[in-house]
């Protein structure tokens, strides 16, 4: 177990945004809230997956909702903590620790907000290793673990327990409906996991990974070094393309932000063009009509100068960007993993071709 420092939290916000692969929502509000909680003397402990006993119960938290609504409702450490307590009441047992469903974006910070209120540690793991748009796109779903129960909390006092759903898809549909009624935002505690399940199916070390990424960027910026090089070295990633944005097309369908953007090469890539598609997060990068890299590998679009991540909602013409790819969690590279989060799960009729490992 180690105590997370105020500096770790700053780095986590930067790293979680990079691992958001274009989506996941900004960690900015959560960072502000944690700074404040730390200034008040609270702190959060981080434990490794090996420090959880097989039959310990671990709470899995996230805030569901529309990014626009989050801009007005902000974050609330007590609500996310209440989602955990409500689950404890439902189960009749206490949680030993709390973890993130997705490390990417603002949800990577939510377990820290909950932990600061509850006085339990955060497990250094998540179930995506990045951000994904839907509930069945997790390592827990790949492992066929139980999708229910789920608690969903509204600050005005409404609390819903989805006690049973047969599949993860049903959980997504049902919990999304509740979220919409709450004003398109809800603090949720997902199906609880045993320590054994977290070790078998959780993606270990992702909080530390995000902190290391963030620290690499912050230190490179401080030294006026190339922050993108620092990211690639920290995460053994690869630089795919550097260029500028020459086209952005967005549309909202079935509640998702879908679209494409085209980059025109600069520097060593001058003369080349690539197209990047997205569904909330970046999904497939195309070059000359052929896929170069796709989900589940992590496609990150970074500001070529600052190294900071650029999201699918904010990318715009003229930005200088560098596209990098980071390795996916092994659990998603299996045939079953690819069924959940491979390119076909996003409607692309292509096979996954790994950039790493083969």
């Amino acid at each position, binding site marked *: 177990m180690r105590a997370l420092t105020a500096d770790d939290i700053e780095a986590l916000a930067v790293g979680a945004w990079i691992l958001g692969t274009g989506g996941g929502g900004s960690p900015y509000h959560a960072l*502000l*809230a944690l700074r404040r909680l730390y200034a008040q003397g609270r702190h959060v402990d981080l434990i490794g997956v090996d420090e959880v006993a097989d039959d310990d119960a671990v709470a899995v938290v996230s805030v569901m909702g529309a990014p626009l609504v989050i801009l*007005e*409702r*902000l974050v609330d450490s007590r609500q996310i903590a209440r989602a955990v307590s409500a689950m404890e009441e439902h189960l009749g047992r206490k949680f030993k620790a709390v973890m993130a469903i997705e490390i990417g974006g603002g949800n990577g910070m939510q377990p820290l907000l909950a932990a600061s209120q509850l006085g339990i540690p955060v497990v250094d793991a998540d179930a995506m290793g990045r951000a994904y748009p839907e509930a069945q796109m997790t390592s827990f779903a790949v492992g066929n673990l139980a999708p229910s129960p789920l608690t969903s909390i509204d600050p005005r006092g409404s609390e819903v327990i989805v006690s049973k759903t047969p599949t993860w898809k049903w959980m997504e549909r049902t919990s999304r409906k509740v979220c919409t009624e709450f004003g398109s935002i809800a603090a949720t505690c997902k199906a609880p996991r045993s320590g054994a399940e977290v070790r078998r199916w959780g993606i270990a070390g992702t909080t530390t990974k995000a902190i290391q990424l963030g620290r690499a960027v912050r230190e490179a910026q401080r030294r006026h070094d190339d922050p993108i090089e620092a990211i690639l070295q920290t995460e053994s990633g690869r630089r795919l393309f550097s260029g500028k944005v020459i086209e952005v097309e*967005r549309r909202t369908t079935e509640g998702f*932000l879908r679209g494409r953007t085209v980059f025109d090469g600069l520097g060593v890539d001058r003369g080349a063009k690539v197209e990047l598609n997205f569904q909330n997060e970046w999904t497939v990068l195309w070059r000359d009509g052929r896929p170069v890299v796709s989900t589940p590998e992590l496609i990150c679009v970074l500001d070529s100068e600052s190294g900071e991540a650029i999201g699918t909602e904010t990318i715009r013409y003229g930005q200088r960007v560098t596209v990098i790819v980071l390795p996916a969690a092994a659990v998603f590279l299996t045939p079953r993993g690819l069924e959940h989060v491979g390119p076909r799960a996003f409607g692309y009729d292509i096979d996954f071709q790994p950039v790493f490992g083969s």
Partner: protein
Amino acid sequence: MKRIGIDVGGTNTDVVLVADGKVVHGVKAPTTADVTSGIVAAIDALAAAVDIGQGVDAVMVGTTHFVNAVVQRRRLNPVAAIRIALPATSDLPPFTGWPADLAGQTQGGAWLIEGGHDYDGRRFMPLDLAAARRAAHEIRERGLRCAAVTAMFSPLDASDEEALAQLLREECPGLAVTCSHRIGGIGLLERENAAILNASLIELAGETVRAFEQAKARLGITAPLFVTQNDGTVAEAARAVAYPIFSFASGPTNSMRGAAYLSGLKEAIVVDVGGTTSDFGHLRQGFPREANAAVHVGGVRTLFRMPDLISIGLGGGSLVDAATHRVGPLSVGYRLTEEALVFGGKTLTATDIAVAAGLLDLGERSRVAQLPAAMVRAVLARTTEMVEEQVDRVKVDAGDVTLIAVGGGAFLVPDALQGVARVVRVEHGGCANAVGAAIAQVSGEVDQVFQGKTRAEAIALSRELADARAIEAGADPRSLALVEAEDTPIAYLPGNAMRVRVKVVGDIQAR
């Protein structure tokens, strides 16, 4: 039509007389600490050069005075910040994330009460009037003179902010209240921050505008006074004193508007090259395109109508490194006439390079005759690259654009640039900012989320509301024209949700 346009910058106060659509004359005078005497001196100089005569219709002033007060942390009032959003948002109370020194000067107290709305217009919580009265009582007890009121989703439904403002005015006589929905769009913290900054400047704005009025009276001008806004329009002085934040970026905005007017172009990129910096912006329908993202002011994250500008450290006074050919970002600024080589100084500046290259006739050319021609060419190649890169950044799509080059340092912009179809230079380009002030119109705008409406319906509804706001701001209803209509689909929200931004402008209603 006869108007006097004034732009009070950090270094110079520019004044122009515009009559019947033509720039009659423009003068520059140094900006003074009290602002007023600089304006009087500039207008005196204008009157000495041309006959201003009778029948001035309006005096339009643009000033950086208020934003400087925030940046320099002076003359700010403590503000009572009241937020209507409980039981949500209490983790991030007002003033969260502010630099300590600025918060120290502006923090008059924070009150959180229940109320507000949801994204679809449904009520979030009933407004807690009892808590509102308690807050009003405490504000009165503490003797606070300025307040900022922010309610959840107030850009969609402003009723709670308006009800609270009414209550505060009744309970706290003399209290100046800023409502956040008048300032910014969706994004509670950033809108609240902007409203608080605005409230902290209310007294300074009042004094400054009174000083403008006095300067005008001393010169015997009876025409009404208008203050220019960030979006390139003007507000009547009486309204402008309530919204000093809307004049934060009026300097570069006025330059862009002046460039549009002087060139007759409505779609173009504008570069305003000053002594220290160059501002690049995109003209759309003759107005600067607005930024759609958070803007930091004095270290505070805000969201309100600001032009989408890129500033780089390139100007006539930029320092040049003869070895690396690096230009800027440091500059000799207003000391150009002492420090530049052509004026007998010891510092190599961008102006010296331009004189050496024969682009400009200033000072003594013989003093730069010995500069190596290869170095001069290399430095100019570097400045050309800098301009090309920024022009490309402010473009909204590929394809060559028209570039209007204005400002005292416009000689640094070459006629041939990659990505630029042609470079336009205009007469009076050196005081484009004051021209932009002189020709400004009034506007009305809307930024709202719609659900269950077709795109056309949502835009039509927004248009009606924007028209009403422009008329309220003093526009002639017959002159209203749509300059911006933008709709963005919103991810995750059901019911085909979209955010619509509409802006109309019109001529000032004659009186």
